[in-house]
């Protein structure tokens, strides 16, 4: 059976979907309305907001079961509102490589997930960075602990001390040891998730090289 798809007409020049790209009918219809004007545009925005609110509620329910109904709904609604602005602002970036709904959902899920993580840490200080991993794993191994594992952790702790910059060490310990969510750390350090992950990635790469050289 032929897939139920249509071709984006050339008149849709305000989106980045290449002419000839095959979109599913729902994406086609919604994209046309969102790149249009008047009543059809307003109706499309309202429909898009409904989709984003559903996605945001989906995420809040999955990640924050302890939140009360009104509080959870406030976070979901704020996430959907922010996601709607992001989707409309970035509509030109939609390339038609997925369904439009999937593309839009990711904005709502992202906004909701970030808000949930930050909400959970709103009254918490960041854990104090331990001197080294050795401080967490020092001393005599318990009866259930593997001596080789203890030595491996000690080697990694030594590598952290030797090759990482203070910033790399702070980020690595916060994210990998202390379990601080990356979006919370990004907010506290006035940076972005992407920049922090780059720091984490570089720190991990330096550790791997150091461990290979010392093994």
């Amino acid at each position, binding site marked *: 059976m032929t897939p139920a798809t249509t071709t984006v007409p050339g008149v849709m020049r305000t989106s980045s979907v290449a002419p000839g790209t095959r979109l599913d009918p729902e994406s086609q219809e919604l994209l046309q309305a969102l790149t249009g004007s008047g009543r059809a545009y307003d109706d499309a925005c309202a429909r898009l907001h409904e989709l984003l609110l559903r*996605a945001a509620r*989906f*995420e809040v329910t*999955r*990640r924050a079961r302890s939140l009360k109904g009104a509080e959870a709904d406030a976070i979901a609604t704020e996430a959907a509102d922010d996601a709607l602005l992001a989707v409309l602002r970035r509509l030109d970036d939609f390339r038609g*490589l*997925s*369904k439009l*709904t*999937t*593309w839009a*959902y*990711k904005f709502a*899920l*992202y906004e909701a*997930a970030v808000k949930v*993580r930050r909400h959970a840490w709103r009254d918490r200080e960041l854990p104090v960075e331990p001197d080294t*991993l050795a401080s967490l794993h020092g001393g005599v191994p*318990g009866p*259930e*602990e*593997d001596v080789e*594992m203890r030595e*491996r*952790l000690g080697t*990694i702790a030594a590598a*952290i001390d030797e090759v990482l910059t203070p910033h790399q060490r702070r980020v*690595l310990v916060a*994210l*990998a*040891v202390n379990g601080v*969510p*990356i*979006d919370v750390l990004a907010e506290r350090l006035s940076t972005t*998730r*992407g920049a922090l*992950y*780059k720091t*984490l*990635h570089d720190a*991990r790469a330096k*550790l*791997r090289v150091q*461990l290979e050289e010392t093994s």
Partner: protein
Amino acid sequence: MEDRDNELIGRLLGPAGPEIGCDACFEELDRYVDLEAAGKDADAAVPGLRAHLEGCPACREEHESLLALVREDQGPAS
């Protein structure tokens, strides 16, 4: 205890293979998930994204949610 230590080592050293970053992951996530939901080889289409999900808990959670949401839209498999 050993599992916990292995998980800690995994978080400290991250994925072994090449990976994309968080920004690229966000840009490609919808395409990746639609391919997964369609039973296609998403990893071949977007190299490095799977490794990133192993190394980044935040992106991993959002990937899990997007895939679950898309599968919910698809309805039960016939």
